């Protein structure tokens, strides 16, 4: 189970990679493992759209579950991963790389403070498994 140290995490199993004022968002290795084989990914925001922290930005479906992906912090949507809906299995194979979902221009960097670092998120995952 991977918990990359350069990322920040939410309790809803999203990750965000922060580079300057750009945030790249996806779901974690733990999340894809829980969902099992992903068969469908749909982005529910569009480039140019302003969305708040906690707003839904994508829907994911596996054979046995469906889940919503929420923005860890608010901002303006800049890019969507156009390849991902065509290859949903990437979420299982490369959740932190090729399976990035949404890129935003972060509105308020202060919101990042509420997120978990890799160690805290890993502990949270262990707690849930019991």
């Amino acid at each position, binding site marked *: 189970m991977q918990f990359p140290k350069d990322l920040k995490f939410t309790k809803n199993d999203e990750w965000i990679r922060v580079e300057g004022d750009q945030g790249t968002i996806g779901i974690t290795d733990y999340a894809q493992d829980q969902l099992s084989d992903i*068969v469908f990914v749909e982005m529910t925001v569009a480039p140019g759209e302003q969305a708040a922290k906690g707003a839904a930005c994508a829907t994911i*479906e596996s*054979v046995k579950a469906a889940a919503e992906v929420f923005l860890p912090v608010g901002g303006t949507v800049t890019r969507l991963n156009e390849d991902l809906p065509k290859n*949903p299995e990437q979420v299982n194979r490369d959740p932190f790389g090729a399976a990035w979902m949404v890129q935003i221009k972060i509105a308020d960097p202060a919101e990042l403070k509420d997120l978990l670092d890799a160690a805290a998120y890993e502990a949270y995952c262990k707690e849930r498994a019991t």
Partner: protein
Amino acid sequence: MTEPLIYDLSAPGRLGVSLPETDVPLAPLPAGLTRDVLPLPEVSEIDVVRHFVRLSQLNYGIDTGFYPLGSCTMKYNPKINEDVARLSGFAHTHPLQDPTTVQGNLALMYSVQEWLKEIGGFDGVSLQPAAGAHGELTGILILRAYHRAQGDAKRTKILIPDSAHGTNPASTAMAGMQVVELPSDSRGNIDLESLRAACDATVAGLMLTNPNTLGLFEEHLLEVARLVHECGGLVYGDGANMNALLGIVRPGDLGFDVFHFNLHKTFSTPHGGGGPGSGPVGVVSHLVEFLPGPIVEIVEAGEDDEAPLYGLVMPARSIGRVKAFHGHFGMHVRAFTYMRMQGKSGLRAIADHAVLNANYLRARLRGTYHVPFDRICMHEFVAEGKWDEAPGVRALDVSKRLMDYGFHPPTNYFPLIVHEALMIEPTETESRETLDMFVKAMEAIAREARSDPDVLHTAPHNTPFGRLDEVRAAKELVLCCRPAWLEGAKAE
């Protein structure tokens, strides 16, 4: 072992039926509105019959063997019900016929209404909802309408235990209300403290299944109902598990204000591979005027020995129709026949033997399968399909292996609050011998889980089909087939 699709059995020019010639002058067909291509198969009658008979042979039904699906109440479907529903006087009546021409139907529906009132302890019943979930939506809409009629538009929340069937929160959302989930306590009841904290002036009601989806009678039911009523809310009862309560206790007496019955569970109407069912709704007196309609009422009392005149009446402040016409009358006929034959003592015997059978299985299996809430259960109980000594073996594997022993598996993965849940409901129509054979199979599987887990992982082996690839079905969506010649025809 695969059966061709009906389109594969088709050949141009084959006719499956004979129809009379047109005996009237031909009228011109509507210009520009007729179709050129009709992509239906052309199959002879014998091929249609063989096709569907062979398909039926790939199915397992209650009439094949034991079917212990928890919360589904797979009891024997009496054959007399099927004959009666097909009587010409029932099967060939039109729903919009003048009521004076269908007094037999209306009398039958009236009796079903009255008997459900008596069995449930309610003051009004509508037979219109087509299934349990439909009854739930109806019930939530009734709660909503009631509160609004009191001028109380702030009550937007419905409290639902985490053990509830998925239709409960789904129905609530469809009614435009908000779901508030309540945890269960260590004994499988609603957590009273959480309930107490959640009850306030924004609560429209609580949705409760009793016995709950663990097969347990809610231990603080009267207190639960009291708390909800005290804050001004109402209590909705999901009657999926009514089989345990017939003649034992009446939900209306326990504090339920609205309640749905499942005729296709408790009252023996067949499941049909996924319906049709029927989900009548019962209510207490202050909610009668909100029932969906029309319902059957006596519009003129009969003099002396004469039968009364029945009619269809819309309740005064009805939430409205929840479907076209009057409900699944064909299921009302079957349920009527069942209740009429069982009578008062028969209904009580049903509950007694349903509860007896479930507890017997629990007693016989508890040594082999962990039963998390191991006390006297009602008509069903939940066991875990996993063992520490057999890592990697899950409820799914146990279920698939049961098929090799000739049984339909119990309900899997529900309720969500038990890991690797196997919900077992034998029903009252199973003999002790059948139950003993089921126990033997379950014990054999428990041994195999330790000695030869692979045979479970790759089960079923003895069925016409092995495990089906659900991932592929979701990824490569093929939901429909088209005849090969259609593409060519479309291109013209």
